[in-house]
């Protein structure tokens, strides 16, 4: 089904759902956009017809439907003038849609069943709609929102320490980034947009390379047979994803941290810094594992791949793009 007309229809439907939500005048139309998004994403998950992908798609459908039911009930609560109940249900529904902790279990079991391009869409494009809706209602939530942010940061960073599957590592890093995104969205939409686009730019080349070489576990890095100088670019890009200066991934974290500290939210800033240290540790561990296990050549590699221009451009952007702060 790859590059078939059906796939293009699904991708256009997902983009349409994003535009629908961005331009929706009411919560009901936004819910319609969320449903269209779920509907169009399911065939993408089923490109490879295996029992694992079927299982992942059913789990995805059930959890997203539950979240949509909560959102519809919250709409009814708003209609009945029960705003507190409606706000709580809306927050829970959108958090389930996002895969934010403590509602993150589904995204882990679904991520294991996906191929890399579809996983990239799940971790990036599928977050746009709920994040935009959260931004619209961010002033109405109090402590529950803060709990979700802190749990996402902590769970995403600590649980990633015991993983060896690269898919789960990327998913846990996404949950941790989700905490940062939720904070940025509660301050200013443009900060959230900037964080989101930088996250996409840095994540894309990493996932493209994992897809080309079919890397599923961190002990498979030595199987990547392209030149070592470009492998270093890949691992520097992974560290950029972890927010290490002087790479591009540090820029959004720097901006958000600056705003959080200037607002006097010191506890939040402490949690954010600690969580980013843990995430950086497991990115570093990926890098060390690759270089330590890849030292010895186990077999002669006669085929030597070269990365495409797009890959190289995006890798260099994620490493050298920090001066973009001059334009922010």
């Amino acid at each position: 089904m790859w590059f078939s007309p059906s796939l293009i229809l699904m991708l256009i439907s997902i983009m349409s759902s994003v535009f629908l939500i961005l331009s929706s005048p009411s919560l009901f139309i936004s819910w319609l956009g969320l449903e269209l998004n779920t509907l169009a994403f399911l065939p993408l998950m089923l490109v490879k017809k295996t029992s694992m992908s079927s299982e992942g798609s059913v789990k995805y459908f059930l959890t997203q439907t539950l979240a949509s039911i909560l959102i519809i009930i919250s709409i009814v609560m708003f209609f009945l003038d029960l705003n507190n109940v409606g706000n709580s249900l809306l927050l829970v529904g959108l958090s389930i849609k996002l895969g934010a902790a403590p509602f993150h279990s589904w995204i882990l079991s679904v991520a294991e069943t996906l191929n890399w391009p579809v996983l990239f869409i799940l971790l990036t494009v599928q977050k746009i709609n709920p994040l935009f809706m959260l931004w619209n209602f961010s002033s109405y939530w109090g402590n529950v929102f803060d709990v979700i942010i802190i749990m996402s940061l902590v769970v995403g960073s600590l649980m990633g320490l015991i993983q060896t599957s690269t898919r789960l590592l990327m998913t846990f890093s996404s949950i941790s980034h989700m905490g940062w995104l939720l904070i940025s969205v509660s301050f200013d939409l443009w900060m959230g947009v900037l964080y989101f686009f930088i996250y996409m730019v840095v994540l894309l080349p990493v996932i493209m390379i994992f897809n080309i070489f079919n890397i599923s576990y961190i002990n498979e890095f030595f199987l990547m047979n392209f030149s070592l100088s470009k492998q270093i670019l890949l691992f520097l890009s992974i560290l950029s994803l972890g927010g290490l200066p002087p790479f591009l991934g540090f820029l959004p974290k720097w901006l958000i941290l600056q705003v959080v500290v200037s607002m006097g939210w010191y506890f939040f800033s402490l949690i954010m810094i600690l969580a980013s240290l843990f995430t950086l540790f497991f990115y570093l561990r990926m890098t060390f594992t690759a270089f330590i296990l890849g030292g010895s050549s186990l077999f002669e590699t006669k085929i030597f791949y070269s990365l495409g221009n797009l890959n190289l451009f995006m890798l260099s952007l994620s490493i050298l793009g920090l001066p973009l702060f001059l334009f922010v």
Partner: protein
Amino acid sequence: MYRFLTSNICAPSIWSRRINFPVVVPSSSFHEIRKNGYEDKNRKKVSPRQAIRDGLKELKKEIKNWTEEVKEGCTLDPIMGMPLPGEVDMQWCFNESIDFDHWVVTSDSDHNEGYSTSTLSVSPTGKGLFSGNLSTQLVRDGKVKKAGYCNFKSIRPQKSFKRDSFHNWSGYTHLVMRVRGDGRSYMITLGTAGYFDVNWNDQFHFALYTRGGPHWQISKIPFSKFYMTSRGRIQDMQEPMPLNRITSFGITASDKNNGPFRLEIDYVGLELDPSHKETSAYEQYKVPYFYAGY
């Protein structure tokens, strides 16, 4: 009302389809119906009070298991558990200290469907021995059409509080077995029960060909060669084995030859061979778009 409907209206349609398990699960049942296997007719009915007492006896042990799991999760470095190329990581070692509670041995005579017998014991050389007598003779009850199988398999691993778990063999490429057979062919079965009941009976099979004779053989079988079946029927759409979700390992003797069989097993292990890139040896052709079922 619900029980009345399910027992009196739905039940006749179930009987006509010759389904032995309740298709509509009663809402008061806690345990999920297995949807395969045989019903335990000798199962004793325990009163709820006795069941609670039995459960509380095991509570202390399960809490201890849970704390050990949490400690292991916090202290274990996952890198140390990663497979290294060329090394064989032993999963099961068959010697004089085999725990027979971890293995289930079955044959067709267990439920009066045949006359085969089998045992799992310790061989005179101190290794595991799967032996018995295979018989394809049919039982004259009018129901059995085929007979003659003997099988032993591992029980499903469990975490604390009796939660079903999996063997995580991700990262490995080959199954390695050191065996000494009798020249017969056996079937290796790897259970890969899924989350939903549609996939509970999914298994992967491959043949174990033995040489016989006094010498041991090391069989190294790639996981990509295993083919998928569901309830014994080979599936049209094959797929790579989900190595992170293995539920059981078993060996079956059912090669339609009457007579005694004898398979000595030293160990069952796993190996990572980096030069093996194949994920599935079957169904590799690509069909054009819009073909039904693909």
